[in-house]
């Protein structure tokens, strides 16, 4: 009897989930297991700001209902951390000491918010915005008219900033060169984009380097600020929440030492195959070789990530499709004078 092929997918975001659906279409008898560190099934990051509109139930944010996974025979192992990949025996080692064998592996673990090494020791006082729980915690800490300080600024942060200002909160960005990441903006154009941000009610401050984040255990009378941001020079800034947005860093610690080529992301060919014959990668975790540019590129944004999931699944089941992006990378200012990024668009 022919044994079913075992596909393992690390990551349950847009790329991983899309790949799982496509693998089911291409290989109906296969065993598909999605491993995710998330406690919930796939929630669209773009929908998280809906918590500011009063959405309290995470079920409302699920991209697919639970029965979708059941009907498609896709096993989702939530709250499961891969500690390493044994490429010799084709096994995933989990943090809880269990192992899982695969025939083909797709790494779609995405990117985590990068925190500069100098601020890592203050991680406990920083508010991430990657999960439903994070979003609810942020909303609760802000109250009605809270103050949020963003560090760095990138298109994920700016997306949230416009939701926060729309919800009546005050947002200040202490910006650096990642302000419009991953857009590559000419120095001469920065001023007009900053102006557009200010038109959206977002305050942008340049030239102040944060060095520490402190907790305020007893806020001053009349304020509810619980965080203090300390700079290299000048007066500290107080806020309800301090959020790092320094671009995304591929989440692939578990791939270190596996022999699979890595620079910042997993290096893949245009077919999204890594240097290991049994491993593919998709989404924000991979750097794709571009023969035209003679270099490895990251492709960000909902459309790109979803397309990568689709192509990876196609190629894992014998296809030979190359990843090419049709998404524009152009940052625009609308007629209303506000900023618009193609990276904010999604289904």
């Amino acid at each position, binding site marked *: 009897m022919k044994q079913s092929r075992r596909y393992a997918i690390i990551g349950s975001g847009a790329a991983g989930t899309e790949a799982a659906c496509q693998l089911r279409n291409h290989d109906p008898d296969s065993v598909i297991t999605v491993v995710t560190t998330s406690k919930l099934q796939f929630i669209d990051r773009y929908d998280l700001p809906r918590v500011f509109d009063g959405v309290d139930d995470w079920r409302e944010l699920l991209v697919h209902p639970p029965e979708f996974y059941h009907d498609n025979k896709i096993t989702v192992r939530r709250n499961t951390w891969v*500690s390493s990949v044994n490429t010799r025996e084709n096994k995933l*080692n989990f943090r809880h000491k269990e192992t899982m064998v695969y025939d083909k592996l797709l790494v779609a673990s995405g990117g985590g918010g990068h925190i*500069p090494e100098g601020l890592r020791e203050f991680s406990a006082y920083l508010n991430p915005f990657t999960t439903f729980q994070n979003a609810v915690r942020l909303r609760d800490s802000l109250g009605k008219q809270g103050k949020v300080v963003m560090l760095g600024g990138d298109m994920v942060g700016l997306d949230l900033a416009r939701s926060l200002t729309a919800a009546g909160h005050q947002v200040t960005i202490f910006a650096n060169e990642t302000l419009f990441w991953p857009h590559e903006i000419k120095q001469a154009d920065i001023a007009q984009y900053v102006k557009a941000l200010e038109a959206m009610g977002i305050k942008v401050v340049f030239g102040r380097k944060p*060095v520490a984040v402190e907790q305020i255990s007893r806020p001053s009378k009349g304020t509810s600020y619980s965080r203090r941001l300390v700079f290299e020079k000048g007066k500290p800034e107080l806020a309800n929440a301090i959020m790092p947005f320094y671009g995304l860093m591929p989440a692939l610690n578990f791939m270190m*030492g596996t022999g699979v*080529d890595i620079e*910042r992301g997993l290096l893949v060919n245009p077919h999204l195959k890594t240097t290991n014959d049994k491993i593919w990668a998709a989404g924000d975790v991979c750097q794709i070789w571009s023969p035209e540019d003679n*270099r*490895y590129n990251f492709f960000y944004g909902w459309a790109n990530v979803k397309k990568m999931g689709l192509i990876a699944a196609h190629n894992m089941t014998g296809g030979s499709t190359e990843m090419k992006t049709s998404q524009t990378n152009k940052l625009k200012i609308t007629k209303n004078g506000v900023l618009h990024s193609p990276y904010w668009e999604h289904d």
Partner: protein
Amino acid sequence: MTGEKSTKLYLPENEDFSGTQAFGTRVVTTVRYSTDPRDVGWVKENIPCQTACPASTNIPAYIRSIVEKRYGRSYELNRMANVLPGVLGRICSRPCEDVCRHGWPGNGEPVAICHLKRVAADYKSPSHQINESLFTPSGKRLAVVGAGPAGIAAAYDLTTLGHNVTIYEREKNPGGMLRYGIPAFRLPREILNEEIRNAVRLGVDLKTGVAVGTGENDVSLKSLRQDFDAVLLSSGCMAPIELPLRKNGLAQDETSDIAGVEYGLNFLVEMHRGKTKTVGKRVAVVGAGFTALDCARVACRLGAEEVTIHLRTTEEYIPVTKEELFECKRESVNILGLRTPVELLTHEDGSLRGVRFVQNRLGGWRANGRRLAIPIEGSEFDIECDTLLIAIGQKTVNDYLDMPLELDRWNCIKINRQGMTSRKGVFAAGDFVGGPSTVIEAVGHGRKIALKMDRWLMGGERRKQVVKVESVGDPLRERAFDFIPLQEMPTTPVKQRFNDMTTEVEQGLELDKAEEEAKRCYLCYLKYEIDVDNCIYCRACIEVAPRDCIKLVEGIDINKDGSYGLLRETSEWDKTGAIWVDNNECIRCGACYMVCPTRCISITKMELFYQNVAEKNHGVQEDPVIKGVMP
């Protein structure tokens, strides 16, 4: 009496039991010293950290001493293998941690072996007494050229072997790369001074500021050879490798004539000699080793606004520790990969304007285990900078030799199996032989060559590796220790680091953290064995084993040295020849030992170290009897 019983099971009757110590009627420990290749083979197979250490440091033993709060003993156990524990506890490249069993898949993070070495040095008593095992004076006079880690380690060993040693060092102070290459914020000079002083105070004549060479005021190698019974060359790799650039009309040796371009090694050496160094606002460093990282971190302290290290491959494949890389990034150093410099760009006045790079892709593996970087044609790009520090490698300087010595294809000194160069009585050690390596490799090599010199001078082996075999009546560990997380090294806040060039970054583990970290060590020197004659095959040990470490076997391969090799496993009882502890899988939790109803599982401590050969056997090559006690 179970201790005695279990001990005798694996000690052949003709072995020496003189180390047995009895208290009252109960035998608590039995010690023997073995040169049996099977015992040495077991250690090399089963104690990965010690095998990986170029100086063969008895790592499990010194870590165990920390759990026992015996910091002085821990320091001495280190010093038996490596005369600079406090130094290496800060700047070792840690080959041991790469292979630590605790870091194997599914076991978690490796033990912070290097940090614990520093714990031994930091917490030993202020009145700690150093133990030396000295031979009587031999009357032999030896010269050592270079007071770097290899030279110091060799001189120390040669002195303890009774020889009269003189070190010639051209710099004002001893230490070589330790002093002139490594910044004080990584290696405080008082630690270096103390440990060098301890190494040479047994009678080494240290002549600093005296160069061996062909100059007018130099001491010639020829005269050294005439005046001494043997000479050891350990002058290291003190010249930078030139940056290979595309032909752009600029000769290779002219690169450093451009204002703003400097070789990283020269930059650090001159700074440590006391010369005031400056850098521009935008600093580029090319190179991937510790020197490159040190250059970048020094540049930050000298006030550079933007410092970037450019790598030919990627972060994952560079030969530095993860912690060093992390601290470098914390100090705002950017690290960019997959690029090779091909051209230097200059302003009209001839000063540096930037560097042209070519984009690389990763290729296969080089013979030395590093990755190949393959340049991509037509992918050139420029970066702007006003200072370029080149730290792509180092090489030996041979022009001081006034006698012809055979060189290898890399222009390093060639030595034979005796450690001797092509000239009789002239030996060589450390980086001067094998090219640039690490401090611990230099120490380990210096020591090995010292023993070979002694053997050549005295006509026989007087110190050799033995395995101390000692029965243990307790697992020494608890299963709970396996769940202790890795203890992080506290560091100086970034802001305070830049006040001066000497504020040490790593602050050392606090005592309670150090003990927790030490408990994490599996103590791989403990050998678990099952006496199959007494085993009743109840499977209790298999039931409690946390890993697949107790196996039913139908046979075992025997290695060339006589030690046990691959286990031929079976799952069928009728084919089972023995029930066996797979010491490679075993994490020494002791659960099997505690549960065994017939006490047929024994634990033996196997410690490999150098031991002086007893006087009566001096010079005897066959089956020497080894006796002695650990310091």
